[in-house]
């Protein structure tokens, strides 16, 4: 038996509310040694369930699977000794330091003492974490956490790595670095890797991909072969387009604004010389911008650049150290209640009440903004219809797939028809379909005159923003429309960069300049 992983007809059933449904409906595939395989699919396709079955955490209801030659049901301990697994929540201990987390995993996998420190050091260098071995894991940024978790799972020199969405919530720079690391590991250490992801652009980093949809395998092969599905429809198709062909049988047209914002539109948000200090550390350093009615404004930057802090000051969650924020002309500090009535907010973690069902969540947030009686019921009906949540109305949020949760948070924020919408990494971890659907909705709102402020990791999404600001170390590194950013991020020899490349260039240039100064 040569394959690293081999599955035959894996079936897994779950209960949702009172019904059971097939999370996996007969999945079969093999993984050849030494390959990086991508497991792609929209949310709720069954990616995590499959990975959990392979690591012996869940028992399949039917079918059989072997990993590294061991049966997943009968010999999970053998697999767990030989494979590294990175769960979605990383499993790091937040109040242990980077080094302590590494030592713990090394000891658990019985890494010999004499090579332990060397191995840990190698991995820390590889992941670029060697500068802060004593920082507590809870204080790391999302990207660094993901790298640390990867390092922890590699400490035992496994023959197989199973990674469950390791790049969720990780910025572009760190994602690129992470993939480079994976390639290096696969080649130098002869490790086979199985990665699940919902970022389609990452498929191109894999040797082979497996497309999962509604618990079934829709396509297998090289990234090129998936891309080829769309070649009849568009020229030089992207993986995402191939993927969409495979799933929907169609490549949707690019999204466009119907009525772009007017120059003389009313200013809805005015941020003037915002400063935020935590002790002696300046997290946000004199940031100013305006957002007009009907404008989509992007707040971009790597993890830890200060965009979340700026965002929290904008909506009044954190007090500003210096500077002013005006929401619809109201000073947030002087009339917080009235100002807050003007906006809706979708948080990164979708802070929904897990003990309230979908309908009750809507009812509560509607009521919170002063809706009642017929008007409230009418808006709830609107939200359920508009966001296609008819099937989920009486289900608790923690039983919902990520995409539906995201729709629900959005619906909650829009019930009172706010003039301003704040979105904090609302698409993080969402699959392309969900994101597309999401952006279509945002654009429609903006067309109707809502001002939208959004933070995001997806640079392709930045294309949809009318204007944006790129933050680096608390300062503004670049600002303007997508075209202007592209111009600023052009480096000699590479004309017309993609927005993502321009972004990387701007940040790298900024870093170089600072290192030059220092």
């Amino acid at each position, binding site marked *: 038996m040569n394959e690293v992983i081999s599955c035959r007809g894996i079936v897994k059933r779950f*209960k949702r509310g009172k019904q059971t449904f097939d999370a996996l409906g007969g999945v079969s595939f093999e993984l050849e040694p030494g390959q990086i395989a991508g497991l792609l699919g929209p949310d709720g396709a069954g990616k995590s369930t499959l990975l959990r079955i392979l690591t012996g*955490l869940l028992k399949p209801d039917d079918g059989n699977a072997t990993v590294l030659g061991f049966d997943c049901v009968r010999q999970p301990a053998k697999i767990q000794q030989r494979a590294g697994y990175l769960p979605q929540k990383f499993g790091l201990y937040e109040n242990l330091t980077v080094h302590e987390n590494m030592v713990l995993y090394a000891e658990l996998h*019985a890494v010999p003492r004499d090579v332990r420190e060397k191995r840990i050091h190698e991995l820390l260098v590889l992941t670029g974490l060697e500068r802060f071995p004593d920082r507590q894991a809870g204080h790391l940024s999302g990207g660094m956490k993901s790298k640390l978790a990867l390092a922890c799972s590699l400490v035992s020199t496994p023959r197989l790595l199973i990674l469950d969405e390791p790049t969720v919530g990780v910025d572009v720079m760190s994602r690129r670095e992470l993939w480079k690391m994976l390639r290096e590991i696969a080649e130098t250490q002869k490790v086979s890797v199985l990665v699940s992801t919902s970022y389609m652009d990452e498929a191109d980093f894999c040797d082979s991909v497996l497309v999962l949809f509604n618990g079934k395998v829709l396509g297998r092969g090289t990234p090129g072969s998936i891309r080829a599905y769309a070649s009849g429809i568009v020229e030089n198709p992207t993986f995402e387009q191939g993927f969409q062909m495979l799933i929907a049988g169609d490549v949707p047209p690019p999204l466009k604004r119907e009525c772009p914002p007017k120059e003389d539109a009313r200013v809805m948000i005015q941020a003037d010389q915002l400063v935020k200090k935590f002790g002696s550390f300046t997290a946000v350093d004199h940031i100013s911008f305006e957002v007009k009615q009907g404008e989509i404004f992007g707040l971009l930057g790597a993890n830890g650049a200060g965009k979340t802090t700026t965002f929290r000051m904008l909506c009044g969650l954190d007090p500003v150290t210096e500077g002013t924020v005006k929401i619809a002309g109201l000073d947030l500090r002087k009339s917080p209640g009235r100002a807050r009535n003007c906006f809706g907010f979708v948080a990164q973690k979708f802070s929904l009440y897990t003990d309230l069902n979908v309908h009750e969540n809507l009812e509560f947030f509607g009521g919170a903004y002063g809706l009642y009686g017929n008007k409230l019921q009418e808006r709830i009906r609107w939200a359920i219809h508009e966001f296609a949540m008819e099937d989920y109305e009486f289900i608790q949020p923690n039983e919902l797939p990520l995409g539906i949760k995201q729709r629900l948070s959005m619906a909650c924020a829009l019930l009172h028809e706010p003039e301003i919408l704040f979105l904090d990494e609302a698409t993080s971890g969402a699959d392309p379909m969900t994101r597309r659907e999401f952006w279509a909705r945002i654009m429609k709102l903006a067309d109707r005159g809502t001002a939208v402020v959004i933070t995001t990791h997806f640079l392709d999404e930045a294309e949809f923003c009318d204007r944006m600001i790129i933050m680096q170390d608390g300062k503004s590194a670049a600002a303007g429309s997508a075209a202007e950013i592209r111009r600023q991020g052009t480096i000699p020899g590479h004309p017309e960069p993609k927005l993502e490349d321009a972004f990387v260039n701007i940040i790298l240039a900024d870093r170089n300049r600072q290192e030059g100064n220092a």
Partner: protein
Amino acid sequence: MNLRRIIALTAKERKQMMREPSNIAVGILLPIMMLLIFGYGMTMDIRNIDLAIVHHGQSPAVSNVIAHFNNSKYFSVDVYHSTLEAEEAIRSHHADAALFLPDDFEAHLLKGDASVQIVSNATNASIARIYENSIRTVFMQAAAAALPPSGTTSNAGVRVINRLWFNEKNDSRCFMVPGVIVLIMSLIGCMLTALQMAKEYEHGNMESMFVTPMTSGEILIAKMINNYILGMIGLGISLIAARWLFDVPFRGSLLILLIGASMFLILQMSVGLVISSVTKSQFISCQLSLFISFLPVMMLSGFLWEIPNMPDAVQYFTYLVPGRYFVDFMQSIMLVGNVWSNILTNMAGMVIFTLILLILAKLKNPKRLTGGGI
């Protein structure tokens, strides 16, 4: 079982514990606070009884009675001359009890047909009984002193002499302090364990732990070792306080006490484990450990109220309260010494109880996830 993995996990738990200040509060501050409260604040010994003495005319016999009560350290006396006023004093909680002396008390006393009345606020019936007994005792002494020495033969009667074994000073701290130790160890053992395990479930750390080669037994042992050490620190503090602050005698063997305490701590941690693996939620674990562990230990373990006095059904129920074995064990080993029958039955009880719970926890806590998202 792999020793190296256990050591690594234990080190991890220890570091985590040191970094969360509330753990230290439970380990060190809570024992100290409870010892002070129970040691100084809670006592069954009678003191400060507010007694109203009512009489309608001064006489040597009356003064003698009042003087006797005044000299007793148990009473603080107020003298009234009107029945109504005294009754009002009881109603308004200014007096706990009243002693009504009849008109011409002295004459009646000498004649041998005196009749006095004790009225007490019996809201708290048990305490009222104790008060009445003390009043009666002091009154009898006073009356005896007021009478002239009588002839020899006619007065002969049986006298009783009270000898309190194991607690010669009649100090209720002697049973309060061992009880508090039990309470402290229950809190550290059960509540902290339940909370920590539930937290691991909630934060998703269990998943990553499950895929390492370690067994669920190792995870549990590592958790237990640290809480065990914390519990033992609590025990140490308590024993030192018992010996030097509260003068509670220690008559048994320290080694046996430590063995028994370890068994109890492990038992309580197993209760915590079962709670957390059933609920998997910190919120409900908190509530449950309050109702399952803390209150029963305080109320049903025989620490304050003796088990043989309870109705039969409740007595059977107390076998399910882990604290009952240890309260009995602690009171005996501290006040009496090594009573083997007592030590062995209680230890056997704790061991069997622990085994049942561990099997339950193991069943509820296999190394697989159940259900869950997609």
